């Protein structure tokens, strides 16, 4: 089974984002490394705007992710509401 991942800097901006990703993707594994967090998940991983907004208490534009994004893998599909990473095989 192929794994996708997203890696984010560890800071106050990303804390609620990571929390939301973990809540929305129960199959994901969080891997904490110096100054960064790498989230691995089998096959697919979804980042949901509404979950981040609920934790953040303000409007959030998913493109704000770019500021603290370190790396990712998988095919990407982004809309206003969701960013999905996935492998087809």
């Amino acid at each position, binding site marked *: 089974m192929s*794994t996708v991942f997203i890696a984010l800097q560890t800071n106050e901006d990303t804390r609620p984002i990571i929390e939301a990703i973990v809540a929305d993707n129960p199959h994901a594994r969080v891997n904490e490394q110096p*100054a960064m967090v790498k989230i691995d998940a089998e096959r697919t991983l979804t980042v949901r705007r509404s979950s981040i907004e609920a934790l953040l208490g303000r409007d*959030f534009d998913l493109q*704000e992710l*770019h*500021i603290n994004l*370190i790396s990712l893998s998988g095919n990407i599909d982004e809309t*206003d509401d969701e960013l999905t990473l996935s*492998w087809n095989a």
Partner: protein
Amino acid sequence: MDMQATKKKLGLKERYQVMTRGLDWEPSYQKKEDIYPYVAYEGIKIHDWDKWEDPFRLTMDAYWKYQAEKERKLYAIIDAYAQNNGHLNVTDARYLNTVKLFLTGVSPLEYMAHRGFAHAGRQFPGAGPRVACLMQSLDEIRHAQTQIHALSNYNKHYNGLHDFRHMHDRVWYLSVPKSFFDDAVTAGPFEFMVAIGFSFEYVLTNLLFVPFVSGAAYNGDMSTMTFGFSAQSDEARHMTLGLEVIKFILEQDPDNLPIVQRWIDKWTWRGYRVLTLVAMMMDYMLPKRTMSWKEAWEVYFEENGGALFKDLARYGITMPKCAETIALEKDHLSHQAWGTFYNYGAAAAFHTWVPEKEELDWLASKYPDSFDKHYRPRLEYWREQAAKGNRFYNKTLPMLCQTCQIPMLFTEPGDPTKICYREVDYKDNKYHFCSDHCKEIFEHEPEKYIQSWLPVHQIYQGNCFPEGTDPTAEGFDPLAAVLQYYHLEFGRDNLDFEGSEDQKNFDAWRGMATKNA
């Protein structure tokens, strides 16, 4: 961060459509082939440029907004780090040598990437890839600038950083990264995109930026961590562009497959060879280590790259053949590279050393199948010799591989006791190679690679001495003349870390930082 999320009138997909395709136009008074002269000669067939899709759907207005935010964060940290003498908080002064290698070897590549993407973007008839290349071109010049700014603070205190741009074009080991990028930017626009956008960015840069930058953070170098992660936040977009390029080209025409596969095979190997320097940085040059080169390779290439190539199998793409050779080298690469730099420590613009005992133990635990058997005894012997006053410096010049320009230091796949040599006769000359893969790359494009500027050949031809040098003069010292040509000061920028000015200064300054002098 206090960022406002503004309510948009259009959805992301519509906005992207309007702000990229919507701004393009059909030329009417110039022929398309005159406007885009390089788009056909590589043999890649594109039928519909509008099929291109940027998965992030980033438009220029959003690009400026987020990049500006990244810069504000970055410079605030760099200033604070410099004002607070943050350089004294790194684990120990040996760490600084990774920064020297980075500035002289990697930062100039960022600038070349800027030029490469500006060129490739200019040559593509489709508005989607043009916009994506424009953004990446701007990102890359930002990376070059932020790295130079961040590392200039170290130049105020430590040696070997004073003339990185001059060194990049001349110093023997820097010809490895330099020639890699020169090779890519002199290819056609599609090959450049596969080389840098896909093979380097998608398959390999995670190895450079993620574990190494995380390692910088672990060693207290907030400055490198900051520019590294700031750069890496752009890399996620670059990787996406790289993957999109491959999918787009392959979906356009079945004839494109063999061309693309050849490029992937070539550039995965070319990029991997350049990463030899990173392998050595991770295993030997970070005083506190996060993961070994081998572990990083397994996570970022074997696991992630494996998933990637499985996904691309639907287009007929297969894992590059060189992956088998690389798997055999992963237990040896960093050790062979560091051994070579230790040998040539008199001609390098950074310091080398034998790792301390617990570091040797760490290496043994990470490389149980190779380290104690092949590499530890050699390092211990060198340490003994150095303690007796016989620190070994190799004064001869090594044979270089015609393709990757690395000294012939690699061993036969599967036999770490025998150096791997390959050769090819072409026209009236004999050319040498470190591996079957470098040899095959040469054989496919010999007229390109016979032009390589090989530092060792250039030294022997007398092209690497300061102007006015007379090599026939009594007592001529070729090494001294070459170092002058490099702008490298003997006894200060080179030789062993033990006894270096960097070591003494760091100890003295750190002492001053923790007590009243």
